[in-house]
């Protein structure tokens, strides 16, 4: 992280795109104006397939609701407790293309009491799932580190499933300055 990045407060960064959209100026090329203009063009048959494609492509985005559904598919009706799990992720990342995460579960790994699985979920990527890892008593230590993509500033959630069937979770807020997953080439 550079010094110039530290100069911005997270709050200021989050609001930057909205403030920069230029609502004060009536002629500013806002997204709404672009879409309505493009639709008008399509109506009079002046548009190439490019614009038509652009209008039809709406990248799917995993909302917090779909994250809840994805978590529901894993945990079922079981309650998810806070604690035991520690999700390490940088609070501010410059590029969403590669973000290091570490999930550590404070639980022994013995033959009867062990961490069965670690799942990671996100809110704003096109899909709510990130990774699902199955562990066992032979894994030795309930710790998993990997690199993930993040499409936007959002909350990332890690859930651990223990051998006794209980679920534990931890969440972390991440601010992403350069989003990944759906960028145009």
């Amino acid at each position: 992280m550079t010094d110039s990045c530290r100069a911005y407060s997270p709050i200021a960064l989050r609001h930057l795109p909205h403030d920069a959209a230029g609502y004060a100026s009536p002629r500013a090329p806002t997204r709404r104006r672009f879409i309505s203009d493009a639709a008008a063009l399509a109506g009079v048959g002046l548009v190439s397939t490019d614009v038509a494609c652009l209008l039809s492509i709406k990248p799917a985005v995993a909302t917090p609701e779909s994250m809840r559904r994805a978590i529901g598919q894993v945990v079922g009706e079981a309650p998810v407790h806070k604690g035991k799990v520690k999700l390490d992720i940088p609070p501010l990342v410059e590029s969403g293309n590669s973000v290091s995460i570490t999930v550590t579960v404070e639980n022994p790994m013995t033959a009867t009491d062990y961490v069965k699985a670690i799942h990671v979920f996100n809110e704003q990527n096109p899909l709510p799932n990130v990774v699902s890892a199955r562990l066992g008593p032979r894994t030795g230590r309930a710790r998993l580190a990997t690199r993930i993509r993040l499409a936007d500033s959002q909350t990332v959630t890690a859930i651990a499933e223990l051998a006794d069937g209980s679920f534990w979770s931890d969440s972390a807020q991440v601010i992403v300055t350069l989003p990944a997953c759906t960028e145009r080439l």
Partner: protein
Amino acid sequence: MARTIINVPAKARRGDIIEIKSLIQHEMETGFRVDNVGQVLPRDIITDFICRYNGEEIFHAELFPAIAANPFFVFSTTATESGTITFEWSGDNGFSATASRDITVE
């Protein structure tokens, strides 16, 4: 064959918890990106990564498009006996790669 970088200690004491690092070269195309003419680039990712210690599965990860390019995993295992640790990746378009490392347990 995709390039892999794997880090497993060559020697360990019995009962020690050893850390394993694995990385494989792969683009992990998400299936959500579009090219310059608006065509969606088809998904091409690794979907499964399995690590086995003398044939017994010790770590199995199911990967989604949210895993960064060149999937990298750090996990652990208990050194129980001398033998081979094998790594297996499989994914879209019939992708498959394997690697193995020997370990001596004293």
